[in-house]
């Protein structure tokens, strides 16, 4: 199992539901946890990752803060539509440090992965890094 940070897979965020220009969604895919994307209020919040080509994914690791419930959907289409549900997970709350959760995707093939944060432990949540094991 290889832990790939997303820049090496040509992955980028193509949709994000919140925008603070100081904390843009590119911070999710830069491979570092010190910079982050932040939600700017209300739920659900979501972002969509696009891979350069269809990619088999055994698991993803999400570094975040105050995320309570996350759903992951995927598709194998060139467009960011017609998603099917893959899995969902309830995160434990952390204080003073980031949440880091590995989520199994069972080798699903995807060109897009959609991350939907349906609830949080606070009004605002942050996502610092998504990395992929393939």
């Amino acid at each position, binding site marked *: 199992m290889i832990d790939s940070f997303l820049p090496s897979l040509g992955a980028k965020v193509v949709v994000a539901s919140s925008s603070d220009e100081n904390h843009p969604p590119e911070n999710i895919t830069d491979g570092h946890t010190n910079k982050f994307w*932040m939600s*700017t*209020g*209300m739920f659900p919040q979501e972002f969509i990752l696009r891979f350069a080509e269809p990619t088999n994914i055994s698991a993803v690791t999400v570094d975040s803060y105050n995320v309570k419930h996350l759903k992951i959907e995927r598709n194998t289409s060139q467009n960011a539509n017609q998603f099917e549900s893959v899995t969902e997970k309830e995160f434990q709350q952390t204080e003073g440090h*980031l949440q880091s959760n590995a989520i199994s995707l069972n080798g699903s093939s995807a060109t897009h992965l959609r991350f939907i944060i349906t609830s949080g432990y606070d*009004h*605002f949540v942050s996502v610092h890094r998504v990395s992929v094991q393939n």
Partner: protein
Amino acid sequence: MVKLRAKCLLVGDAAVGKSALSHMFHSDGTLFQKNYSMTTGVDLLMKCVHIPDSGDSVELYIMDSAGKQTLVESCEKMWGEVSLLCLVFDLTSEQSFANCSHWMERVRAHCRSLHLPGVLVGNKSDLSTRREVQASVAQEWAESQGLEYHETSAKEKENCDAPLLALARAYHSLYQERRETIQNLGPG
């Protein structure tokens, strides 16, 4: 530049003027409904508020929830996750002020441990001869509940913007605080 989004819950007894206040705020003081029409569900109004000296703004989604006792339970199902609280009473009705503590209990139970910035609004300040609740008493109770106190008259367009502007500012401060906290976090 950031655009924040907040769901603001507007509650309080029936006929204290919640809908009148929210329409005055939403219409920049041009729409005062002269005829009473009881809200029976949850009405939604959206207004974008600019935060002075920041370039930032807050989109307030105002949920005007029916105050009538028999409707409250079904309305609560539509509240969802709330960001801000605007609790309104009628300055000419001691009872509507006394009931504010019940409203607080209901909102607190609904939001569990989440901290909600909130305001207490005494409306109908134009009816000064019929006033039953003194400002100092309301102020004191508001402080004990962590709410900021405002008096308004939707009819005379007095101060109607103030409570919701205060909420937008409080939400903006909360965002900045949280962002600061996240910037100082250690790795997972």
